[in-house]
């Protein structure tokens, strides 16, 4: 198949169009502005809707409206804009509307900067807005996955009637790689009998998240939780790579997984058997596989562009079966392979001095 050289943002936009997305609403913010620019041209070609909203708040609510009518609709932004969209995300989750929201993460908090970061992990995976809800969160690590994941995201969103977030970062948005674009013309578009399209030959449809009668909201929450349990059971995705019998487990997602993959052969050369778990779904998180491997390794090493957000989930998963070490940089600092390698070597020294330095099996 023909390969194209595309930036991550362009690949994601094209992937979304090929996944049947016909409605895009957004507001400019770096480092994702290539997505609306691409959509402005491309959606007109396919008879879709592109609209630059007056704010991120308006954009997510336009998505809410389009999604309510059954369309595949999306918006994209970065940290500060995603914060503004949290109200809308909570409403989408509460009203069970499928939609795609893309966060090309930049440094925070506040206005921060426009450099790469992974500091919106908590916001994406632990709720972000008000109420007991979850988004499905997908973490691409290549331009190819930037192109492929919109399709997966829309399918999952439609299947579960739940908003899905693609959590990328400025590196993935801006970098260019060769991409194979898949033709998804035969989209698995499912029937949406719940959509508001005019009550023609059927009873009235209502999209809502308000349940005032006693017990009604609790029942609605239980229904949502049941759905989340099914997602946890069926939708956990991760990549496991490296030595089949590791003594060190690396855990990293997105662009930081690439840094890990780069240093793994170097670790092998100095005689350290390493494998990497790259969570692809950050929610639902691959707790089980990490727990399994944590029984076998000397330690886990987590790499993030944050102060250690996914680290908390890795610690939960490991159930203290082995020590969990962390290295991360914040505010746009990108860990270089050499510095990560140095950190791992330091940990190896510390760990080799332990009395019970044995591989548990």
């Amino acid at each position: 198949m023909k390969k194209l050289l595309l930036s991550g943002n362009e690949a994601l936009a094209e992937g979304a169009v090929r996944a049947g997305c016909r409605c895009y609403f957004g507001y400019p913010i770096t480092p994702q502005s290539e997505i609306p620019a691409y959509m402005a041209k491309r959606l007109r070609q396919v008879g879709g809707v592109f609209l630059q909203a007056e704010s991120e708040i308006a954009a997510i609510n336009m998505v809410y409206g389009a999604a309510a009518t059954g369309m595949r609709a999306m918006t994209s932004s970065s940290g500060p804009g995603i914060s503004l969209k949290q109200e809308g995300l909570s409403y989408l989750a509460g009203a069970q509307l499928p939609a795609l929201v893309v966060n090309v993460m930049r440094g925070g908090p506040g206005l921060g900067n426009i450099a790469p970061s992974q500091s919106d992990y908590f916001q994406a995976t632990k709720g972000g807005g008000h109420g007991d809800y979850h988004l499905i969160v997908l973490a691409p690590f290549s331009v190819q996955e930037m192109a492929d994941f919109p399709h997966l995201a829309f399918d999952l969103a439609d299947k579960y009637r739940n908003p899905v977030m693609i959590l990328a970062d400025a590196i993935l948005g801006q970098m260019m790689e060769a991409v194979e674009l898949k033709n998804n013309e035969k989209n698995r578009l499912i029937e949406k009998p719940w959509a508001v399209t005019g009550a023609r030959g059927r009873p009235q449809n209502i999209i809502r998240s308000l349940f005032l009668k006693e017990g009604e909201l609790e029942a609605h929450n239980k229904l949502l939780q049941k759905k989340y349990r099914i997602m946890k059971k069926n939708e956990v995705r991760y990549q496991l790579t490296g030595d089949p019998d590791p003594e060190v487990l690396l855990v990293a997602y997105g662009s930081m997984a690439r840094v890990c993959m780069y240093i793994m052969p170097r670790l092998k050369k100095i005689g350290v058997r390493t494998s990497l778990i790259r969570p692809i779904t950050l929610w639902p998180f691959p707790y089980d596989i990490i727990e399994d491997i944590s029984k076998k390794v000397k330690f886990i090493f987590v790499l993030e562009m944050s102060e250690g957000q996914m680290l908390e989930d890795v610690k939960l998963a490991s159930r203290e079966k082995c020590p969990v070490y962390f290295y991360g940089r914040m505010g746009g600092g990108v860990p270089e392979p050499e510095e990560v390698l140095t950190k791992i070597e330091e940990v190896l020294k510390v760990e080799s001095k332990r009395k019970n330095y044995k591989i548990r099996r």
Partner: protein
Amino acid sequence: MMRIVYTKPKSMKDVPTHYCPGCGHGIIHRLICEIVDELGIREDLIGICPVGCSVVAYNYFDFDMIEVAHGRAPAVATGVKRSRPDKVVFTYQGDGDLASIGMAEIIHAAARGEAFTVVFVNNAIYGMTGGQMAPTTLLGQKTTTTPFGRDHKMEGYPIKIPELLSSLPGAWYLERVAVNSPGNIRKTKKAIKKAFLTQIEKNKFSLVEVLSPCPTSWRLSPVDAIKWMEEQMIPYYGLGTIKDEGIQVVREK
């Protein structure tokens, strides 16, 4: 032989509403349903009700409805109308919702000339949350958050929304009406119908502001509330057409 001269509109459910005695929402709901029946648009209609006393209007309207966040109805309506341009779309918003938290959304929807209809119910107060000051609260009016009366030095002046929107070329038809008397209720119906026709015939933005009583939060009897409307509200706001670009014009290409 007997003849039926008055009946429940088909697009209105046969249920009691939760509105307080003397509230204007019930009248306005009924007018909308009568118009929907008369225009035969029930099966192509999508209504949008944001946070406020009328957030559960879908319990009374028997057509497709979306309940949305506070102030965001014009953005949601934009998403609906843009993705389904063949449908008839309206928002039903209160004054706190439209003129305060949703000010950006309504101005930009009007500026873009979005082809939906806005029914803007102004009762000069936040009813649902228990009677706080709204951007439309009159000077001197006492509310729970202006216990000494609204003072322009502290809280500024009440906002006239249709006048504010009238400078925007995208705003096609803007009118202010009131539901204080049978005559004005008939005028209200005429205006809302014209607003829907502006959408259907011209594919343009229309807004009708309806001055409406809120006896409970005004701390007045329903009769005194109507009197207060006539003595205070209507003289300040003024009734009539604020802008009308006409619906008899040939449809644009």
